[in-house]
């Protein structure tokens, strides 16, 4: 039998058993609307959450950071070798780094030879005067390591146009050139103490290292040039918490000059994507690869023999979390849908079988004329597919009608989830083309599984018992 004729006969059977057909279609429609609404919610939750995340990335960029490392309850600064790895990896991925800062640690230094605790403090002196006075007691001239950033960046603009008020910010040629940048606010407080500083002036750093019982003091001093004055507010972002940065110091110079007094404790890089079109996927992959490569050359944190990588790319982390969360929600929804399907498909299969049974006579007649069991199955299958497809397609229409409702629910969810970010959430609820197709297939699969027995019976049935004239 030709497929076209199978279709034609199936259609005919459905048409002349309208009430049964309509009943089946309605059941399929109701159930599939329910299922597809659930799935639509899940899929769009996932998609929108990912979109919102991307928006946040476009707006705020990302940070790559490694906090101070702890190995077996021991503060463990990053070693020189590890830092070389970090630097060379950063050079390799310079296109996704805007700024590079390190935080150096100086307060406690464990002398491995004497096992003595040696403490170092830094102070700063200004001016070109040969008789510099270092005063660590004077707040303004002691160097606060927590408000100082040691910079090393290829991009040099920090992503902020109006960061620099005078002079110019770090560029690659400044590496190792003993340069320093001060915040305008800091310079203003110096003025109240009678110190006036201009770009090009001298700034001297001095490290005082005290022996175990304050019994000795070693002093090391190096001169730096004030290369620029910056706006601390711009650097940190006005609404950010945390330290106000008063000083930026060329990292290479400082680490070289004070190699015995400081060690690396924290590293932070930032990146904001370009405001123009860019290849998001490539950037994302690069960020992930960058993070991985950084971690590959840096010993992880360790606590009770569990290890945790030092470097994190905040955006990659957020995104992975988002995807994981969405996947869990989606999985729950899919499971729920399958459950609903399982519970309902029995009745769907039944109405299909009953509607087929009403055509017993016609099917029996065709069998008398040589229709084989496969032919019967083809016709019945075609009938059930058509009923399911029509039901699901009507449900798709219903879905489009429900869309605004889903959008409203999603919007209020996202608003509460992302209220922290100043990102405009552009919500979209789309019905993916594969959803109805998958629903039809699933429905059909379950319906055939459920009705296999009855279908086989109808196919096998004696011709005689359906049509014969035996009395």
């Amino acid at each position, binding site marked *: *039998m*030709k497929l*076209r*004729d199978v279709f034609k*006969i199936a259609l*005919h059977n459905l*048409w*002349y058993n309208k009430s049964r057909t309509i009943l089946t279609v309605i059941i399929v429609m109701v159930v599939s609307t329910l299922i597809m609404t659930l799935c639509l919610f899940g899929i769009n939750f996932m998609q929108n959450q990912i979109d919102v995340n991307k928006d946040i990335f476009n707006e705020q960029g990302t940070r790559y950071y490694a906090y101070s490392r702890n190995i077996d309850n021991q503060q463990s600064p990053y070693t020189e070798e590890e830092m070389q790895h970090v630097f060379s990896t950063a050079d390799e991925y310079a296109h996704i780094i805007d700024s590079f800062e390190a935080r150096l640690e100086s307060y406690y230094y464990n002398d491995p030879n004497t096992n003595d605790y040696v403490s170092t403090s830094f102070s700063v002196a200004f001016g070109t005067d040969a008789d510099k006075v270092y005063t660590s007691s004077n707040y303004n001239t002691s160097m606060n390591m927590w408000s100082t950033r040691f910079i090393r960046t290829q991009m040099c603009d920090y992503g902020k146009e109006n960061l620099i008020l005078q002079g110019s910010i770090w560029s690659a040629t400044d590496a190792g050139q003993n340069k320093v940048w001060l915040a305008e606010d800091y310079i203003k407080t110096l003025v109240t103490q009678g110190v006036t500083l201009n770009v090009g002036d001298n700034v001297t750093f001095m490290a005082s290292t005290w022996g175990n019982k304050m019994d000795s003091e070693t002093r090391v001093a190096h001169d730096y040039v004030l290369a620029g004055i910056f706006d601390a507010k711009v650097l940190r972002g006005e609404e950010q918490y945390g330290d106000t940065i008063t000083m930026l110091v060329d990292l290479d110079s400082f680490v070289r000059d004070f190699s015995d007094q400081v060690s690396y404790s924290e590293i932070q890089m930032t990146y904001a994507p370009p405001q123009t079109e860019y290849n998001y996927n490539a950037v994302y992959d690069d960020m992930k690869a960058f993070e991985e490569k950084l971690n590959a050359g840096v010993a992880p944190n360790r606590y009770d023999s569990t290890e945790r990588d030092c470097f994190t790319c905040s955006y990659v982390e957020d995104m992975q979390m988002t995807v994981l969360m969405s996947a869990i929600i989606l999985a729950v929804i899919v499971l729920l849908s399958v459950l609903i399907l399982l519970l309902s498909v029995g009745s769907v299969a039944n109405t299909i079988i009953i509607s087929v049974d009403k055509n017993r*006579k*016609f099917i029996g*007649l*065709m*069998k*008398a*004329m*040589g*229709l*084989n*069991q*496969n*032919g019967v199955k083809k016709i019945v299958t075609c009938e059930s597919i058509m009923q399911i497809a029509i039901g699901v397609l009507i449900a798709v229409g219903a879905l489009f009608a429900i869309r605004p409702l889903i959008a409203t629910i999603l919007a209020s969810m996202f608003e509460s989830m992302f209220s922290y970010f100043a990102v405009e959430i552009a919500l979209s609820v789309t019905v993916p083309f594969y959803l109805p197709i998958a629903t039809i297939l699933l429905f059909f699969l379950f319906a055939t599984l459920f009705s296999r027995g009855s279908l086989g019976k109808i196919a*096998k049935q*004696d*011709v*005689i018992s359906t*049509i*014969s*004239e*035996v*009395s």
Partner: protein
Amino acid sequence: MIELKNVDKIYGKGDGAVHALKNVSVTIEDGKFTAILGKSGSGKSTLMNIIGALDSPTNGTVYANGQNLTEMSPNALAEYRNKTTGFVFQSFYLEPTFSVLDNVAMPLIIAGMPRKEREEKAIKVLTQLGLEDKINKKANELSGGQKQRVSIARALVHNPDIVLADEPTGNLDSQNGAEVMALLRDICNMGKSVVLVTHNMEDAKNADNIIFIEDGVAEMKSGNAVNSEANG
């Protein structure tokens, strides 16, 4: 040639079992008109269904041109029916909402014949039976006599070897009944075997062979012998 050898048909089991055919051995000769004659409930339809491979016997064997039908698979039997047999029923069994053309073409549709070809064949047969103006009518728009002629057209469209008719005149008035009987005779004259089930002596009179059946026991006689017996 179709041969039934020691055929039994028992419906049901145990106390309620009905022994509808009892050790029946008959032969349907090619190109002959065979009538099955008997009272209501005697087993006529049961016998015809077994001859036409619509049903299988409980015991015994059925040979069609040397092939053992009782050993064939359901699909092979379906194929056999589709190629070899044509049925005419008392209550027509036309699909009321199909056009006459589609009803007649049904055996060819089942055989998977392309549309153009099968419609040509159906139109040809319908024209032969004088139904050319009814081709596009729905089956339920026809009179009883027309319906039965359509169902005869359907039984002929695929050029079967044997046409089986179960009380084809049962629902018709005498004039239409006579026309249908004449048609069946013509079909036999075209060289096909015809098996007619009837309880009407008159209809059986012109048959080449007559199978008398009573309470499931069948006896076959040649028509000539019966007629001369009646005359003599």
